[in-house]
């Protein structure tokens, strides 16, 4: 925005931990030895299930909680024990934290007034932000006179207008409708790139994560599962957890058994064209994304169990032997429970994981896929 030409600064998180102690003295490690780097001017997304420590990590970065262990370096300087003000951050709180006695305009301008930005500039910036967020009409309302989404936008406005080199956002779009959210996604990303902000963004919406992030940090139970670019994470999930967590609908994970003739889905007889290091034992998890599953006359036979209408597509739950797979099929395919069909997928669509610790297994061998026509099909689909 206004002439700001800041370049974000790097945030280094080193073995960061945060332990909560309850009255009974029981300890919960909300964040447990987390290390990652949010690179200067890059968009880093924290992703993970509810309660996995995303907000806590963000609050540690902001300096709102004292770390139990580990450190935070911002722009190379150790900031672990410095107060929030010194860290050059703006933040959107998950619970908004709007000042209840101030109206929208005053809430948004709070920081600028604190920092004695001249009124003229304040007015200019306010106008831009309000327009961006569609808040022009609401500037003199109090927070309790706003809808949930409107409150969230005000919180967003307060962070955006600050133009700090680092911006932390905790689920800033969760209460917005799809359309607005899509617009905001684009706007935020553009803004971040234009200003070169270092963004650390918490979300539970992977569409958001994948479309906005330069880097995704997947967390689970206070620890990091995987750090990588969206494509890394989507295409090569490092663990069964990540695999199941990323993607809507999530990846299908099927327990495979090593049979006499090779690896099979229990209850089916055709072995899958897989070669797995025998040291991995007799079971493994096979992952296939719903959108990679196609109807395939030469594929495995399956029975439709349920169909979920999603507008653009249908999600079809199909039983293959003992396993149930969800396939994303075009909406006009007209399937109903009980229908029989054959399903197949490409080789590169298969992911294998250790069934004990969930680690990704390399696909060491190649057999003949059950879907010989997959190349043609792909050709067709993208024609």
């Amino acid at each position: 925005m206004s002439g700001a030409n800041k370049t974000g600064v790097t945030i280094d998180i080193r073995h960061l931990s945060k332990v909560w102690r309850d009255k009974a003295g029981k300890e919960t490690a909300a964040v447990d030895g987390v290390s990652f780097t949010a690179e200067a001017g890059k968009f880093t997304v924290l992703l993970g299930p509810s309660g996995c420590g995303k907000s806590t990590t963000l609050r540690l970065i902001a300096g709102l909680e004292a770390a139990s262990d580990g450190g935070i370096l911002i722009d190379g300087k150790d900031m672990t024990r410095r107060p929030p003000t010194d860290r050059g951050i703006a933040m959107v709180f998950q619970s908004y934290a709007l000042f209840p006695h101030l109206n929208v305009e005053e809430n948004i301008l709070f920081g600028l007034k604190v920092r004695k930005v001249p009124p003229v500039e304040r007015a200019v910036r306010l106008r831009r932000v309000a327009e961006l967020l569609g808040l022009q009409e609401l500037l003199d309302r109090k927070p309790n006179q706003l809808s949930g989404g409107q409150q969230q936008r005000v919180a967003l406005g307060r962070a955006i207008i600050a133009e700090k080199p680092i911006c932390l956002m905790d689920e800033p779009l969760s209460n917005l409708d799809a359309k607005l959210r899509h617009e905001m996604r684009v706007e935020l990303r553009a803004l971040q790139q234009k200003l070169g902000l270092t963004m650390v963004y918490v979300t539970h919406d992977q569409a958001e994560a994948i479309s906005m992030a330069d880097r995704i940090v997947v967390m689970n139970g206070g620890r990091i599962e995987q750090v990588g670019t969206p494509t890394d994470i989507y295409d090569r999930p490092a663990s069964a957890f990540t695999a199941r967590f990323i993607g809507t609908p999530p990846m299908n994970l099927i327990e495979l058994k090593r049979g006499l003739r090779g690896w099979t889905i229990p209850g089916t007889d055709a072995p899958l064209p897989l070669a797995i290091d025998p040291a991995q034992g007799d079971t493994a998890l096979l992952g296939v994304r719903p959108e990679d599953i196609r109807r395939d006359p030469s594929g495995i036979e399956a029975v439709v169990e349920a169909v979920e209408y999603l507008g653009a597509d249908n999600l079809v739950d199909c039983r293959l032997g003992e396993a149930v797979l969800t396939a994303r099929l075009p909406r006009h395919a007209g399937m109903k429970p009980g229908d029989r069909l054959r399903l197949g997928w490409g080789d590169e669509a298969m992911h294998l994981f250790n069934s004990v610790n969930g680690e990704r297994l390399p696909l060491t061998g190649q057999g003949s896929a059950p879907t010989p026509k997959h190349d043609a099909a792909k050709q067709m689909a993208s024609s």
Partner: protein
Amino acid sequence: MEIAVDTSRYDRILNTIGAWALGLLWFLPLIYAVWTAFHPGAYATRFEPFAPLTLQNFVNAWNAAPFAHYFVNTVMLVTMVTLSQFVLCTLAAYAFARFEFPGKTLLFTLVLLQLLVMPEMLIVENYQTMRVLGLIDTIAAIALPYVASGFGIFLLRQTFMTVPKELEEAARIEGAGTLGILWKVYVPLAKPTYLAYGLVSVSYHWNNFLWPLIVTNSVETRPVTVGLSVFSSVDQGIDWSIITAATLMTSGPLLIAFLLFQRQFVQSFMRAGIK
């Protein structure tokens, strides 16, 4: 918030110094009271570090009136007053904070009016009322005029008004009735205020003198202040040693109670969760 701080270190030191300086200044009369109470009368005005200590002042004070009995009475009195105030004021404050009904402003004005009316003015009339009720020389008679406290109603109203309305709505949806909401939502959320009010009300009634003196006659009903007043008659000049000893003796329990209860304020039982 546990802000990871060290800039505010100076802040904090300044804060501590300021707080303690003011605290000591405020405590001077009490420090003096402690000094005087534990030293012989001759040292009431001279502060020599090695002056002899004595408990005689306390012994004298204790013997001057049936204090044991008075303490029991006072404790009964403050318990009675404070509990009934809590109940009545809570009900009334809730009505003022969250109900709309005709005459509300007028009634609230009448309540505020009670704050203005000084109890001394009402002594003669209230004495008559008590006589009609046959309550002269009972603890109930001391308590009754104070039970509906304008102060308490006003205070609780202010507090209830700041409770997020959603919480009431949630309780209402869950099927809680008016009293249920009050008891399960407003009262727990106003806990700091109840503590504050309780402390203030207890100290007030612990120290109230004129009305109890007038409306009671017997050792069985009189509060400690009546015993205390024996020492403050000045015909023969003030004996600071015994006044302070008696004061410490009668107010000591209150000070200790405060030290204990103030901890409750610290506990953030009402943090966050409220957006």
